[in-house]
């Protein structure tokens, strides 16, 4: 089987290995490393992760599917994860979600046809003092309102 993950992934694992008493403890870091490269985790990537840690791909999937941050379905170039938990809702997060749904004619959890945007609802991001907040790919955007969100989206090519 030819390798789909880069040397960077394997080097990353090697660097972390002495930090843990078991190899399977590397599974979460491995999933993060892989997703940084591939944006989502198709079955063949899960298989390669399993092979690199000496565990069955089913075990990889069992663990990956427990956590919301591992994308087991393809995502768009820009993944908006809008927090709609209590503090953000109190500050208008619902309207942000509704605005995006209308703007792109998709529902939460879906991706635009051009594969540019994926819209997700997110549970509390720990940014309640600067609510409403969202993640755009790996970064935080805080103190949002519809105008600010639109301005931000306009900058995304």
């Amino acid at each position, binding site marked *: 089987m030819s390798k789909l993950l880069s040397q960077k992934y394997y080097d990353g694992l090697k660097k*972390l290995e002495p*930090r*843990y*008493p*078991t190899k*399977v*403890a*590397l*599974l*979460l*870091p491995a*999933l*993060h490393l892989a997703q940084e490269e591939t944006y989502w985790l198709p079955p063949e990537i899960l298989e390669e992760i399993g092979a690199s840690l000496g565990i069955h791909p089913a075990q990889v999937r*069992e*663990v990956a599917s*427990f*956590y*919301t*941050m*591992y994308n087991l379905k393809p995502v768009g170039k820009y993944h908006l994860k809008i927090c*709609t*938990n*209590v*503090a953000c*809702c*109190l*500050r208008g997060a619902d309207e942000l979600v509704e605005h995006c749904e209308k703007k792109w004619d998709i529902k939460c959890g879906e991706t635009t046809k051009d594969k540019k945007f994926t819209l997700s609802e*997110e*549970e*509390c*991001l*720990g*940014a*309640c*003092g*600067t*609510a409403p907040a969202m*993640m755009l790919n*790996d*970064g*935080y955007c805080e103190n949002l309102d519809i105008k600010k969100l639109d301005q931000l989206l306009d900058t995304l090519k």
Partner: protein
Amino acid sequence: MASETLYIQHFNEEARPLAYYLAKMNGYTAVKKALAMQPDDITNEVKKSNLRGRGGAGFPTGMKWGFIPKQSAKPKYVVCNADESEPGTFKDRDIMRYTPHLLLEGMVIAGYAIGSNIGYIYIRGEYTREAKILDAAIEEAYAKGYLGKNILGTGFNFDITVHRGAGAYICGEETGLLNSLEGKRGEPRVKPPFPAIAGAFGGPTVVNNVETLTNVPFIINRGGEWFAKLGKLEKSGGTRLISLSGHVKKPGVYEVDAGSITIRQLIYDYGGGILGDKKLKAVIPGGSSAPVLTADEIDAVYDIEPLMKIGTMMGSAAVMVVSEDYCVVKLLQRITKFYAHESCGQCTPCREGCKWMEDVIERIEHGHGREQDLPLLLEIADNINGKTLCALGDAAAGPVISFVKKFRADFEAHIRGGKCPNA
């Protein structure tokens, strides 16, 4: 008011580098002092300080350290719980992004006190930036000999690794966290054995919250007695970082002497009052799992025992404020949806009950509720409460019971009117 604040004056980007920590915060002087002490004396100092866990349970930290066996065939571990997953809580994020070295120093001292050489910071996956900041601080600390082999020439070794979670509320529960650290699903374990006996990788483990561990260098430098006296109530030492959010004019992290202010003071004096000068409807005083308070109950002192006395909890010191024009049924629907989503699914009462409560509250909010739905909700909540492996079940039941009891009229208006009066 806090007579002296330990943290917030340092909550800015300038404070992040090691140079600042050394120059302005007596950085790594506590570890130097601690490594010259007997490990038991450190634990005793922490016991004297009345430091209680800042993650939510409020368990005395010194006592927790005292449970770790002296001799162990397996390595012992210090695990920092930086999952900060309780909705409404964001204080640990500030600690990590502004004063990362304080956490590292606290962990080294904790390691020395319990006889451990290995530390992990389990940080929630969403805090990508904070994880990078910690990694950079760890690198700085290794380079200067504050971490690694033979720390400050004392012969003591300690390593710290940042371990990122990946989006699961339940990993804030300490045994769920440990499973996640071991590369498994973050499902809580059956206790006993408690982590102090068999925690990470089967070894004796102390799991402490970020704020808890960062209090330790202050305690070592200035003494447990000094720390205890910062607190204004008998059992709670130190200052508390409070995450204030929702409908207040000035949301943010505030630091107060433990037990020194009421909820009213927090909202009106610190938070600047309610947005738009509206009336207060409700306060969720300790993260979303804390039973709700009405506007009439906010003269309670904001600390562990006074809040327990009025039937709620301080939890992670996250206060969410709700003004008069926000629908409390909608609010409870959102809270319950969260717990239904985050239930790990191991225990039937929680897995089935949380989803059921969510469905019932949703139909009430949308005007399809029935008269018998309110007793039904209380019954489901009662069937979850105390009947699950971990506290998530109780966390879901508490809000439902308290909202229905305290805002019954709002629920009844939805049911009788066939719609949300606010819609």
